[in-house]
């Protein structure tokens, strides 16, 4: 579980969960509801180095494709292989089994600058 309360968020609806020098990344419950019926997740290749805000993953629903942006900079050290067989995990468990990838952070200050849950919720209520 990557408890919502303990996650940080981006305005583009990704969450990040800090685990030492790593950040686990997924999409918010609000985002999975909006996207609905996820049928394929095009995960990044482990080893890829990404900058914060870089498009590095695509989530496909029946109707549309949504780009996912890295919340923080670093190296992608793991991806959620379970999504290859069951992409709808992102719909069912956006903050648990539906995580997307794990980044080894190069600039942890970026994490601290992400939105907390209350601030994120404020952005989606506008």
């Amino acid at each position: 579980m990557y408890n919502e309360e303990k996650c940080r968020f981006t305005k583009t609806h990704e969450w990040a969960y800090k685990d030492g020098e790593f950040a686990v990344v997924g999409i918010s419950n609000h985002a999975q509801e909006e996207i609905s019926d996820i049928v394929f997740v095009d995960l990044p290749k482990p080893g890829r180095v990404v900058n914060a805000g870089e498009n590095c993953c695509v989530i496909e629903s029946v109707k549309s494709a949504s780009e996912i942006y890295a919340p923080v900079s670093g190296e992608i050290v793991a991806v959620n292989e379970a999504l290859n067989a069951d992409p709808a995990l992102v719909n069912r468990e956006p903050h648990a089994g539906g995580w997307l990838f794990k980044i080894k952070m190069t600039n942890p200050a970026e994490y601290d600058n992400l939105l907390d849950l209350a601030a994120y919720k404020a952005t989606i209520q506008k």
Partner: protein
Amino acid sequence: MAEQKKTALCTACEKAGGRMVDFHGWLLPVQFEGILAEHKAVRETAGMFDVSHMGQIFVEGMNAWPFLQYVSCNNIKNGPAEGTYFHLLTEQGTIIDDAISFCLSPEKFLIVVNAACVEGDFAWLCKQAEAFHVKVRNESNAWSMLAVQGPKAVEVINQLLPGVKDLPRFHISPFTMFGTDGYVTRTGYTGEDGVEIMLPNAKIQELWDVLLQLKVTPCGLGARDVLRLEAGYLLNGEDANPTKTPYEANCGWVVKLAKNKFIGKTALETKKEAGFPSRLVGFRLKVPGVPRAGCKIFYKGKEAGIVTSGTFSPLFKGIAVGYLDSKIPVEAETEIEIHGRLLPAIVVKPPFYKNRV
């Protein structure tokens, strides 16, 4: 932007949980419970779609049938209650719209046309009608239409309209329901058996409410698009447009060159003789991924075509139709560019889904 048009079922759709989007100026549900669940309902039981945005054009007069023969590339059936799928073509033999005509009497026909084409088709028909002395009336704003589709659809509708089960495919029948006259046709856009029911706007919600009680699943445009693509039906404006002839759009069967005279005939004869550089074919992705309209198609490393419709099919995974170099045969291995990656796809002849209809 023009004012957002709403169907008579708009409020009912919203109340049923419809996620409303703009579609050619109409506010319509893209989904209710979810596209996958709605797709399943139509393939396994019964679903209903608000298709009130589609157009109803009536043609009346002694020359109604000769007139339709002239504006259609297909042979318009004129037996009682018979329906015909046809294309309206330009003088160049290219597709203005695809539509269905129904023979209400020897001198009266109903044409059901695509929403985005209502004004254009009506103007085109009026222009051609002058020489035939027929009356062409656009009644699209007066009629609502509900498509009820799926293996259980006819059984359900037969409870409300006894005898519908005996209506043959592609036929129409007038009926009276809720004290009002309407039409029912044994047609659809899903590849399943089913009907489309036309009622005056004021009465359509009664039908919707009854069908909800009978557990017919409300379905949106999202599921409709997957179902029609699986069934190999064209989406006019995407898979067909006024730069393409029916031959290129995998609809050569709709063209009856043996007919005496029709708009576009001369051009089609010439173009058919010359051959076509590309034609519409189907694609099945061999790996996970979802092709979309606009994706480029490659063959042996060279760009060879473009996807016009693509989706994720619960039955066949990543599928698409698109225009491909005519020299490339069915079953050839191509690649579709999706998010910057080339994914292998096999060329197939639509439809993907072949069923009871």
